[in-house]
């Protein structure tokens, strides 16, 4: 009973709830979902998910945050009891959230922190706003990610502009497609971790190693192919996946997890071909693969890849000023102070801006240091 690890997929805020509402009906049995928002309406629409959590009833009276991330943050902070009921016992928390709005942006860093408090490994899929949503939304999203990275194990950034297909298609179709991209990956990942039928099980510890060493940012891709030459075509579509295209991540990733699901007709040479062509040639690359077979996948191959953008031992200290590597490559001053939430920690005193950097923001956040846990 306690041998299986508990995995929870949580949708946070409007975008997160809507995405999960599309994914959940297709999910295999046993996959656990939950959605959380402060807006009744959003949750009402998620009929496919049973576990619907309304937080901050006292703050918003069941309405939305109105784009105020401060409200989103307080909603979650004020609902410690509900969070505990939701998160305790969870081993892997996968969060889907849209950043740039009110609830998701404000709540995500708090959820990350609380989940860590409950001992869960966290993987955040963050949907970033379209460029046309404006610089303010982009700025809010960026600052939320900076705040999250301290507590999350891994963040997958998914800019809307990349995951939504181009061209002359209906809005509904476009949303459906993007949630399918994510959904297929999520389900694939879950199956590898949870399904007992795996040939070569991707165990939980491997995923934990990957997530806790990936220095907070991951790339994610998934693809499915059928028929003749399915191994070739699955590789092609992985390389052309909107979230990895042009990033060259497959050549340089320092760490990677490859999960392959196929029917009973899966061949060893196909596995070999896929792994060979995806893994970087570097000898230091940490690669872990998992293979699952499922009769339902007859004639099909489905592959998911989780690739780290950087690799770092989770402990950041080396005893003598070894934090230097973590600092220095940061993009400093990327946000105007207007976009930053005002901290009330220093009274009404003027903010300390030094060379365009806001020194009132904790140094470990600005220097992008992942705190040892």
């Amino acid at each position: 009973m306690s041998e299986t690890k508990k995995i929870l997929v949580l949708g946070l805020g409007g975008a997160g709830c809507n995405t999960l509402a599309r994914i959940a009906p297709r999910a295999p049995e046993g996959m656990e979902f939950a959605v959380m928002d402060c807006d009744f309406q959003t949750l009402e629409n998620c009929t496919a998910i049973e576990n619907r959590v309304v937080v901050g009833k006292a703050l918003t009276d069941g309405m939305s945050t109105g784009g105020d991330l401060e409200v989103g943050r307080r909603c979650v902070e004020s609902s410690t009891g509900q969070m505990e009921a939701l998160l305790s016992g969870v081993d892997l928390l996968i969060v889907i959230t849209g950043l740039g709005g009110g609830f998701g942006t404000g709540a995500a860093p708090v959820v990350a922190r609380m989940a860590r408090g409950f001992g869960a490994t966290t993987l955040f899929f963050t949907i970033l706003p379209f460029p046309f949503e404006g610089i303010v939304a982009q700025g809010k999203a960026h600052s939320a990610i900076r705040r999250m990275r301290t507590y999350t194990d891994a963040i997958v950034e998914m800019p809307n502009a990349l995951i939504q297909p181009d061209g002359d298609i209906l809005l509904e179709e476009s949303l459906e497609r993007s949630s399918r991209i994510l959904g297929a990956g999520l389900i694939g990942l879950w199956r590898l971790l949870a399904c007992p039928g795996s040939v070569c099980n991707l165990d939980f510890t491997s995923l934990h190693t990957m997530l806790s060493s990936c220095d907070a940012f991951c790339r994610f891709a998934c693809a499915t192919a059928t028929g003749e030459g399915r191994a070739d075509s699955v590789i092609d579509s992985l390389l052309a996946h909107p979230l990895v295209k042009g990033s060259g991540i497959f050549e340089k990733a320092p760490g990677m997890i490859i999960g392959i699901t196929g029917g009973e007709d899966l061949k060893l040479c196909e596995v070999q071909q896929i792994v060979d062509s995806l893994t970087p040639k570097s000898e230091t690359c940490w690669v872990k693969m998992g293979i699952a077979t499922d009769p339902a996948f007859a004639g099909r191959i489905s592959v998911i890849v989780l690739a780290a953008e950087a690799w770092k031992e989770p402990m950041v200290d080396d005893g003598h000023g070894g934090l230097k590597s973590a600092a220095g490559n940061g993009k400093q001053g990327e946000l105007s102070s207007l976009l930053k939430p005002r901290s009330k920690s220093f009274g009404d005193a003027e903010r300390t801006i030094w060379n365009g950097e806001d020194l009132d923001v904790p140094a470990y956040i600005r220097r992008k240091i992942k705190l040892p846990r």
Partner: protein
Amino acid sequence: MAAPLITALEIGTTTIKVLMAEVREDGGLMVAGLGECESRGVRKGEIVDFELALEAVRRAMEAAETVAHKSIGESVYLAASGGRAESLLHIGGIPVLNEYDEPGGEITREDIDQALEVARKIPLSDERIRLHTLQQNFEVDGRGGIVNPERMLAEELRVGMLLIHGQRAVVENLKKLTENVPVVCADAAFGGFCSALAVLTPEQKRAGVIVIDLGGGTTDYIVFNAGLVKLAGSIAVGGDHITADIASGLNLNRRQAEALKKDSGSALINRLQSDQNISIPAEGGFSGRVVRAATLHTIINTRIEEMFKLIADKIEHDGLSGQLNAGVILTGGGTAMEGIADLAQQVFNAPCQIGRIYDCVGLSTKQEGARFAAAIGCVRYAASQIKPADPIRTVWKVWLSKLWGGNHE
């Protein structure tokens, strides 16, 4: 007749300190009264709540008067930390003329005075207020490092002035606060400069040294080389920031974070201690928790290292990094942090020590001393301002002091 009692007031973010001291004829200090009070209504060295701050200053003054069994008198000297202080080097010069008003001639006393006056005229924006104008060495025909150019032959005489200026609103508000106590604020001095006066020996000033005053809300620094102040400034980041970082990183309240910082904080990430756990006791609605020492030390280390690096970058930028043979001296409340001297040593790559006040009697311990550096230095600065006891020259000197280091607007 005893030497006059000088009172220094330091309005800090964490504590307000009042120090009454006599300056003996040989320059030694004799502390008569010491008053300290937890600061209220001050953030980053600026006043954010006037009434609270006024109350705290009054209490500190009463405490000092009680210890000294004397009254503070009419005027106090203010050590202003105030954040955001900066220094500016301005070089002014005049052509030297001979008795026929032709270029080239012997430098006279008048030439020197005139050059100094030209150099002192430094334009400053309305938001800034000058705290000190410190003379640098003379330059004769492009040859620098001349201490006294009188009677030298030259065509041009130039002299540099280092202006230390602070934010007008902040300093004026601090002055206004003292006037509401009510006492007269005789002068305001830069806190970092005061700290340096308290802990530096003339040898250290000559060899080149950085003094960093780690305050609660601000960090002041000042660089000496060849006996002169070369660079000074202040960053509005201090011990409060470390506490805030801990509070946000470990999800604690401010008081718990402050206690954790004081009890278990370390500026270095020590491998031996990194596996240790620190328990935070339960209280009120908080059920108690255990945090890892490694996490705490990482948060503190990151902040302090960044602070030092900002100063190191500034020094590097001004080309002074190779001239600091006496290393780094730390003063202020932040020196109580474990391992801070070692961290400074790493960042500045120079020997580092906690400042010790020299030539002063009446303070309890050395550690206590480093905290009072700014107040003690302020008394020393005040003594240098009012030294001339000769009544005939007083008027002239007052005028001169106004020009030199004064707080004139």
